[in-house]
């Protein structure tokens, strides 16, 4: 099923290796097939207590009153945890790297901002007892108007979702409601383009659906420490988040994990650890907080929905001369990690293509839905869907083979990317050539001969710098032995001239003419 093509790029590799490159058996496979791999919940403790949270039935509401008397008296209930019990009841995941304001409570106190937001937690001798007690809690709400559409949320009269960001957008650089990308002059290029195509793309919210749901067990340890068995994807990230919310020194927490029943991004948010630890502190007993499948499906953060508008300026000879993107990340009620994905999305625009004029505005928008988070391909998956569907439409519009159209515009070593860094170590063209060969997708000779390593002169890219043989032939070399970030410093990088005259054809007029002429207007497949 999988074939390695060692012949391609062989000159850049040292294949004289003993262990690397071998199909060695997984270290954890025997444990998996014998059912002995120990996941967080495969540890047993006497007198284990169980935590369940009460979740808001409303997408947006003010909490008028909470009555826990009956619940507190219910059999098996050891403790009810309210917002006031949480030492630091406001946090944002990326505060650990000083990105964004604390905006999300562990337990809602006055207002709930999405359906399923936790309001209080009940710790009981069994999961059943906890669930039964939850049913006895009486809460009265004043429902508030809610907003669910990202573009509605940006209207001036829209309901404000998140008090930390009253305009419903994350704040970038302390002054913008979105992240910008500006490269060349798209409007001028659109005016010069043979064709301008625009379309709208919409990603759906997606559940990570790992077969093991999020969960953790917090166990009071000797000398005032707590051992936490956890399903987290990020051990110290979760440890530090839990320490902050519980106002504990981090060395009072001992996190153990590392064998996790799937994550795909859904186990970064540290949804269970802080409350499990708090409950263990308040009761002095081991406490398990295991999300139910229903909770995981609807109230564990999903991959956020993204709405993306793409506008391309295309020439009949196959060149894309301008690309404009406007994107809205549906972050739900709180930030979690969407703010980060926005920047990653901006960096990815315009995709693996060399386009001389690029313009993007990407927004992280708050709505009254379950907060979104990272998922496999974070910030890129939906954009790739939009870009690659748009590439197809562009190709059809100019009557060019969609694969050759991509290869024509593919970035190559030495090209200048829209975020003003030189493209290096490119291989898009080679991937296209091999896939086409495998699938009997007809490519014409000049496309079969193309290479990512032939740098392209011309206005579309910075003067190509030939890849130095040394660095190319030394794959083992890693970057702390060299300038940590291989891209040139901003200052050294010639910004592309803002042009009003039509951009020069990518590979220099004559070369370009030769490459493109046979493509002109032909329709194949």
């Amino acid at each position, binding site marked *: 099923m999988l074939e390695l093509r060692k012949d391609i*790029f062989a000159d850049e590799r040292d294949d004289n290796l003993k262990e690397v490159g071998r199909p060695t058996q997984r270290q954890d496979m025997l444990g998996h097939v014998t059912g002995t791999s120990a996941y967080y919940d495969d540890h047993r403790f006497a007198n284990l207590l169980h935590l369940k949270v009460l979740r808001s039935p409303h997408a947006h509401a003010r909490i008028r009153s909470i009555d826990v008397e009956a619940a507190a008296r219910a059999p098996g209930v050891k403790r009810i945890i309210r917002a006031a019990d949480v030492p630091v009841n406001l946090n944002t995941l990326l505060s650990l790297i000083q990105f964004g304001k604390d905006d999300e409570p562990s337990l809602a106190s006055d207002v709930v901002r999405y359906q399923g937001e936790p309001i209080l937690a009940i710790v009981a001798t069994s999961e059943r007892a906890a669930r039964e007690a939850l049913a006895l809690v009486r809460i009265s709400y004043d429902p508030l108007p809610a907003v669910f559409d990202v573009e509605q949320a940006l209207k001036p009269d829209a309901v404000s979702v998140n008090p930390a960001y009253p305009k419903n957008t994350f704040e970038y650089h302390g002054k913008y409601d979105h992240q910008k990308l500006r490269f060349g002059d798209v409007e001028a290029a659109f005016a010069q383009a043979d064709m301008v195509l625009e379309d709208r793309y919409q990603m759906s919210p997606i559940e990570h659906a790992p077969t093991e749901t999020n969960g953790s067990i917090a166990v009071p340890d000797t000398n005032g420490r707590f051992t936490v068995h956890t399903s987290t994807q990020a051990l110290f990230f979760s440890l530090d988040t839990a320490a902050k919310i519980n106002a504990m020194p981090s060395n009072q927490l001992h996190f153990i994990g590392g064998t996790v029943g799937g994550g795909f991004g859904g186990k970064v948010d540290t949804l269970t650890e802080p409350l499990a630890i708090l409950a263990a502190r308040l009761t002095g007993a081991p406490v398990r907080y295991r999300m139910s499948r229903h909770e995981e499906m609807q109230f564990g953060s999903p991959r956020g929905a993204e709405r993306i508008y793409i506008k391309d300026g295309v020439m009949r000879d196959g060149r894309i001369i301008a690309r404009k993107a406007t994107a809205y990340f549906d972050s739900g009620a709180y930030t979690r990690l969407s703010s980060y994905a926005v920047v990653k999305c901006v960096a990815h625009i315009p995709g693996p293509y060399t386009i001389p004029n690029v313009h993007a505005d990407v927004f992280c928008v708050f709505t009254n839905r379950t907060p979104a988070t990272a998922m496999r391909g974070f910030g890129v998956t939906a954009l790739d869907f939009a870009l690659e569907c748009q590439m197809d439409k562009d190709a059809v519009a100019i009557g060019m083979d969609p694969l050759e159209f991509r290869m024509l515009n593919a970035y190559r070593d030495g090209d200048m990317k829209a975020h003003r860094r030189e493209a290096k170590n490119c291989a898009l063209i080679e991937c296209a050539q091999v896939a086409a060969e495998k699938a009997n997708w007809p490519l014409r000779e000049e496309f079969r001969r193309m290479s990512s390593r032939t740098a392209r002169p011309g206005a579309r890219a910075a003067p190509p710098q030939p890849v130095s043989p040394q660095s190319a032939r030394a794959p083992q070399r890693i970057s702390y032995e060299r300038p940590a970030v291989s891209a040139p410093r901003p200052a050294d990088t010639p910004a592309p001239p803002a042009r009003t005259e039509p951009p020069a054809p990518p590979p220099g007029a004559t070369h370009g003419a030769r490459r493109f002429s046979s493509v002109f207007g032909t329709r194949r497949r």
Partner: protein
Amino acid sequence: MAKHRGRGVATINYPIGMNLGGDPSQALVHSNPTGKFTVSLSSIDLGQGMKSVTRQICAETLGVPVEDVYVDTADSDTGPHCMGSFASRGTHRVGNAVMVAAREARAVMMEAAAEELEVDPGDLETDGRGAIHVKGAPHRSISVRDVAIAAQFRQGKTISGRGIFLVPLSDVDPETGEMSPATCYAHACLIAEVEVDDETGDVTVLKMTSTYELGRAINPKLVEQQLVGGSWMGMSHALFETAEPYYPDTREGPRDFNEYLMPGPGDICPHDIVVLERPAPDGPFGAKGPGEMCANPVLPAIANAVFNAVGVRVNELPITPEKVLRALKARPASVGR
């Protein structure tokens, strides 16, 4: 009634590691007294194979058999800091940290061996099978086991190493978005073949053909696991999955695996995969990371194949048969019945 076939393509790249850097990982490597090595990490294996990939990188760097290395993770008391298992950073970031630690441990091991063999460390090489010998003179050799015993009980040396890998955090220009998002990128091209039922809108994926450029396949079977499983998830995202079927309306959200639709074992199709290796200058043995990107090309390739088959574009995910059927009915000269 008619079923129409079509195929579509997508080409993508993917940045390795956290955007803008600033996501360090550390590793510790040490030998026990008889020459077996332990790698201590706090990194997470959530199925992607972290334990196995770092194990092979460590063995290769030390010059010992993979069986002589065990990766212990994740315990915050014994494993040094790791940012986490996400952003396709495991192989690249953690792999690099393990390499550095293993190099340091190897240097001590070679010194100890040199002392035992009374030669210069520079004249020694490992055979990868558990022995160290003088270059060009295989008979002047000592086992890693004996070296470890000597280091521990005679020389008083610790055969151990510490490693960290960090791409320093860089910033973004507010006005232009100028930034250094990543130090290397993986690449892919995927071609999907589908069949569309023009009476119901049902889409069946018949075949996938793909090429992935991953810098270095540290373990081809683990790469295959990612690419096969990832393409299934891509198909799932493209045609099935939604936590809010009527988005932006939040009603009818699925509560279980009956309501949350994903392709079953009867929905999967043949997938021919080719892997290319253009080493990343800063990757461990050139490796990048296949974990996330493998799902990405499948979504647009399927969408484009649907267009190729029946001439309609569905720009909203998932591409449900309902959306395909609505698009078919919206066409003036609809449905070839």
